[in-house]
């Protein structure tokens, strides 16, 4: 995990890139999340200070939007599409299978910080449904049998 001083420095650079423009708050938070994979508390405080926005408002925005995470996320982010097209093609059985395999619920990260499980509503690849996006890779026509294979591979790769 990054040191507090690093977080503050990086945050300042990001705010500067957006020229401190207050309407860019969401874009700033998106950049911070991209840099750290989540929104560290220190970064949120630093954003408020640097942009002249009360910390309460930064927190409001950070918690309003689904895309932001206030907790550190795992090395691999598993996003299960639960959009309507995937739902009618059995996404909930796939979700259950991931929950059983990773032993976590959506929104959680497993103990060794390898995997986070998240839900999304339609990733725009409904033809491949049910779809799971892991990091940036799309896995279409998911089956429960494929879940074991994919997770197995990622675990191997991580070792």
């Amino acid at each position, binding site marked *: 995990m990054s040191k507090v001083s690093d977080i503050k420095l990086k945050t300042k650079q990001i705010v500067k890139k957006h020229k401190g423009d207050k309407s860019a*708050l969401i874009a700033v938070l998106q950049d911070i999340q991209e840099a750290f994979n989540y929104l560290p508390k220190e970064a949120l405080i630093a954003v408020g200070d640097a942009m002249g926005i009360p910390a309460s408002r930064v927190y409001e925005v950070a918690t309003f939007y689904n895309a932001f995470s206030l907790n550190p996320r795992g090395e691999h982010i598993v996003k299960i599409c639960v959009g309507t*097209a995937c739902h009618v093609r059995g996404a909930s059985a796939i979700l259950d299978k991931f929950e*059983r395999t990773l032993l976590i619920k959506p929104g959680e990260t497993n103990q060794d910080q390898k995997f986070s499980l998240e839900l999304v509503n339609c990733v*725009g690849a*409904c033809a491949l*449904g049910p779809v799971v996006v892991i990091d940036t890779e799309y896995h279409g026509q998911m089956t429960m049998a494929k879940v074991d294979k994919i997770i197995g591979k990622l675990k191997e790769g991580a070792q």
Partner: protein
Amino acid sequence: MIKMNNTEALRQVQDDLKSQYDPKKKLVTICAGTGCRGYGCIKVKEELEAEIKKQNMDVEVRATGCFGFCEKGPLVIIHPEKIFYQQVKIKDVPDIISKTVAQGDVLEKLLYRDPQTNETIMKEEDVPFYKKQNRLVFGQNGMIDPTRIEDYLIIGGYSALAKALSGMTPEGVISEVKKAGLRGRGGGGFLAGIKWEGSRRAHGEPKYVIGNGDEGDPGAYMDRSLMEGNPHSVIEGMIIGAYAIGASEGYIYVRNEYPLAVIHLTMAIESAREAGLLGRNILGTDFSFDIKISKGGGAFVCGESSALFASIEGRAGEPRAKYVHAVEKGLWDKPTVLNNVETWANVPLIISKGADWYASIGTENSKGTKIFSLVGKINNTGLIEVPMGMTLREIIYGMGGGIPKGRKFKAVQTGGPSGGCIPESLLDLQVDFDRLYEVGSMMGSGGMIVMDDRSCMVDVAKYFLAFLQEESCGKCVPCREGVRRMREILEDICAGKGEEGDVELLEHISTGVADGSLCALGGSAPNPVLSTIKYFREEYDAHIRDHRCPAGVCKALITYSIDPGKCTGCGLCIKVCPTQAVSGEKKKAHAINNDLCTRCGACIESCKFDAINVK
């Protein structure tokens, strides 16, 4: 790209590009839309390029946006013959290059085979999926590389803008759009021209135009494919709109989950600016206008106009009351026109070909075409563009090829979470804004989710209510509490704990939620429930009275069993069962212990003999 200082320069550039273009030259186009990327089309494209190099040929491989027929990706078309190859794999590439591209020989096995006639079809336009489409907005997707403005210019791109700037007054543009009868493609179907006129008349500087690319309806992805595949068409429409309204600044609000759309839009905006089509003094006139991109934060409610403005302003996206309309006080309280990105992409067509031509397509009060995403339990999943007024039957059976695995059609859900489920008895409905509304659904952004007899209508209603509860911003009580309460009732029904009178209670709460909510999220939240009650009441009753889920979906009401006549005792299901619920001797019929079974469905997926039943 050189900067063009007048409309004559634009024509010159277009002519130069056209004169360099040889329509007889070999060209390979490959869909690089999100769906086909999921099938690995990028590797196929790289392989095509490598093979061409290896064989020392001079052939362009062009990665384009979505062709629409995502079901059969990766898709490749060989020009000029326009040979349409589907489900292309890396191993097919050498033959494609050495046989088809080099010698014009058609590879039969890569052609689309019509399941009805069992005959192969060579050209895209003859495939039943495409045959009856009218791809005015979406058709160019398959021809242009969205990262190159030249590809858009060569097909006449930005000519509509030139026509508006050089020969039409802003009022003239507005009256043309009004006459065309263009209605918004993002949900409500409001007349675009009326909105524009209101904003033109409103006082306040600067004025804004915004493209809504939030595409929150799950199961709809036409906006994504348009922004990814033909970003300039959206941008050109917005520039024309800005000219008509007198706006100097614009935004495109794009959903967070659409990174490729953001990249392509950003590149398109930059190249348009370089070419003098955006920025100060567009095409040398005194009209100046520029566009920025604003990335959403993944909240469904931010597709709603006032919430979207709040989000662009950097705040939490909560809707506000609309005592004053957005055309007068929108973004930063300035006059603002918000239109869906597909709406914007229709504008250049109207200006180029005229309102009369446009109004000749479609139905009496719904003009032009609409892109639909045909998804769910349907054979040909993909994006289709059809004239307004096409029947659901033609769409689902003609283009969609019907329901997979010989199952029975049950319903089609349109309009996203604000829409409803339409039953089989209404399949001859002519799809347009008003007809869909009349049957208790909506056009929404154009999602059509097809469901078969294995989809439970109570579960679908529960699904949408759970979605809406999650996405409600919580500002007003009827939406926040009412939607939650409705979801709880539906959950009870699905869990076998429903009671007589629950359906009536749902209807009663619906009235309160619809009437008492501030924005349309709450206002239309009851639709999925009311439409399923209206058309599938017997399914609610089966859950409540008989504790039965006829579709075999609701876990608390179903049991798994093995058909001893079909079971071969292969033991596969034992391996996958997470709870050791299956037992049996090898090569003898197995059985499921219902006390241990969690209805996870893993055994069904594993069984190759169709021996497991759900009831």
